[in-house]
């Protein structure tokens, strides 16, 4: 997963330093900094770890420990679009497992992976708080309720269309 990370051109140390400095004044600044970095670059580059450690007077191990603990923080950039599908109980009761199966069998897209054209990343989440209109998803942060196979097909066609 880390292979190629170093070579990623998205990271910019000057911008990273500015973001870190901006948030370092907050109490418990680590998570706000990580969110801001991920928002800017789409992932948390390993080269940010010593910068954060330095700014907050922490060890690199402490910072790495925090980054690696949370599901949100990615070690590599994802696809252009992200579909987060809820796989928790309420959505299970409305058949989300069948939709995930459809993604895998029909569209050859697996949860946790990105389409070959880099267009669409599929992630599993556990509850989006839209449990009365299950199955629920977030497409690039926008809520989708009553997800069905037609909606899944449409999302894949629009965002992972260039798949080989």
């Amino acid at each position: 997963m880390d292979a190629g990370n170093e070579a990623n051109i998205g990271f910019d140390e000057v911008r990273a330093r500015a973001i870190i400095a901006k948030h370092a004044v907050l109490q418990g600044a680590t998570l706000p900094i990580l969110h801001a970095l991920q928002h800017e670059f789409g992932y948390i580059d390993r080269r940010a770890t010593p910068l954060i450690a330095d700014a907050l007077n922490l060890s690199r191990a402490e910072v790495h420990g925090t980054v690696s603990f949370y599901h949100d923080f990615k070690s590599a950039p994802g696809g252009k679009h992200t579909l987060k599908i809820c796989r928790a109980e309420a959505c299970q009761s409305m058949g989300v497992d069948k939709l995930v199966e459809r993604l895998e069998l029909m569209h050859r897209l697996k949860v946790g992976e990105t389409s070959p054209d880099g267009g669409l990343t599929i992630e599993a989440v556990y509850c989006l708080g839209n449990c009365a209109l299950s199955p629920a998803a977030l497409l690039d942060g926008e809520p989708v309720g009553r997800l069905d196979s037609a909606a899944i097909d449409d999302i894949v066609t629009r965002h992972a269309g260039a798949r080989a």
Partner: protein
Amino acid sequence: MNARVFVSRDSAAISVGANKVADAIRDEAGKRGVDVEIVRVGSRGMLWLEPLVEVETERGRVAYGPVKPGDAAGLFEAGFLRGAPHPLGHGETDEMDWMKRQQRLTFARCGVIDPLLIAEYRAHGGFAGLEKAARMPPADIVEMVTASGLRGRGGAGFPTGVKWRTVLGAPADQKYVVCNADEGDSGTFADRMLMEGDPFTLIEGMSIAGLAVGATKGFVYIRSEYPHAFATMEKAIAVARGAGLLGANVAGSGRAFDMEARLGAGAYICGEETSLLESLEGRRGQVRAKPPLPAIKGLFGKPTIINNVLSFAACPWILTHGAEAYADYGLGRSKGTQPFQLAGNIKRGGLVELALGATIRQLVEDFGGGTHSGRPLRAVQVGGPLGAYFPDKLLDTPLGYEEMLAAKGMLGHGGVVVFDAAVDLAKQARFAMEFCAIESCGKCTPCRIGSTRGVETIDNIVAGGERGKNREVLDDLLQLMTDGSLCALGGLTPIPVVSALTHFPEDFEKPAGLRLAAE
């Protein structure tokens, strides 16, 4: 005359097209040259009717739903701006059976007011509780919350006033108020709805807590799966600060309280209070051993009130109307109301606020109208992923803290998830263990390793290999996790598993055709 139309901005409503409906109504009004003001409100909680469109009339608001963008022209044609009948019409919202039978204290304003307009909040009784608290000695505020019988709505059910009293009595140069808005339980969305639909209620509740214990700083920790709630909360905090309701002189009390919204990062365990504190401090969300209690040594080592969104949000009502008025609702030691959330395979899902003590059946049948699929109901999980699965014969169990414990379940955060006949309870039991394995913080062995062993053992049982012996292993494991885990995640994961084994044993005893054939 300027007609007022209300369309929800709640993310559940948006998920089924509320923004498009609002646009369609605006466009249609433009085409017809009619002056229409579209107010974006929170949700009334009738999620099966979203996108819900309401119109202000002399009789009160009249409801239409679920509305599709293509319905806009027909609604205008029928005269919906006057509240005229239409196939999607439900009459006056407040007279609808589903609304009328509720006891909305905490959610009285949600779906009614513009969530970010302080003037509307005030006009609907907002800030009366805080203004009263501003004139009271701290100990009296704590006493009032204690007398109301309010218990932690996050699930643990610990008396809120007792927690506050401990913080009040702890000497310190700095104290904190932390709101747990890491609403991770599947089937729950009350915190989200309140933060999106009536955020000032939470701000008011946290400010009251601050005044009650002498805390000057608050944090609301919101899960990252709720981007809309986070955005609304941030805006509401800025508005409240601008209006002098947060800051150096809260509501004229001469005392200071201010707050910040913070974003979680996708970790269920951060709904556990000590993990949440670790996360706020910038570390891995690993559980702390207790004692010391957060009330003595909490955020940054200082005395800290940490409560759920719904606990804080109940306080303005309690301060305004009095402890006794609140305690008049409820059953036994479960006082007040609970915003229940009706979810999953349900015909009419949404938010139902009722006095504690309502039965599961009342919710699922009277309000919910049975399953969404139309197939028979088979199981109802109450209280999130750590709650029990109940069969039909236990649906008359009252939803109160002690009553749910007696039924070997728990009330949790008031989520009620319905499953139809297609559910396989062995699969659900396995998922409970799998979820625990995914979300375990890793600090204690019973949770970290026990959950993975649980998945394997349930797999073995389902596959039919030495069922008797594997069942012994599983029972032993469940007991160990219950007794030996550091927090509720490992400690309560056995609840759904045991309930599935007890009430639905047949799902674990199916002939294991494939596995046996392969051997």
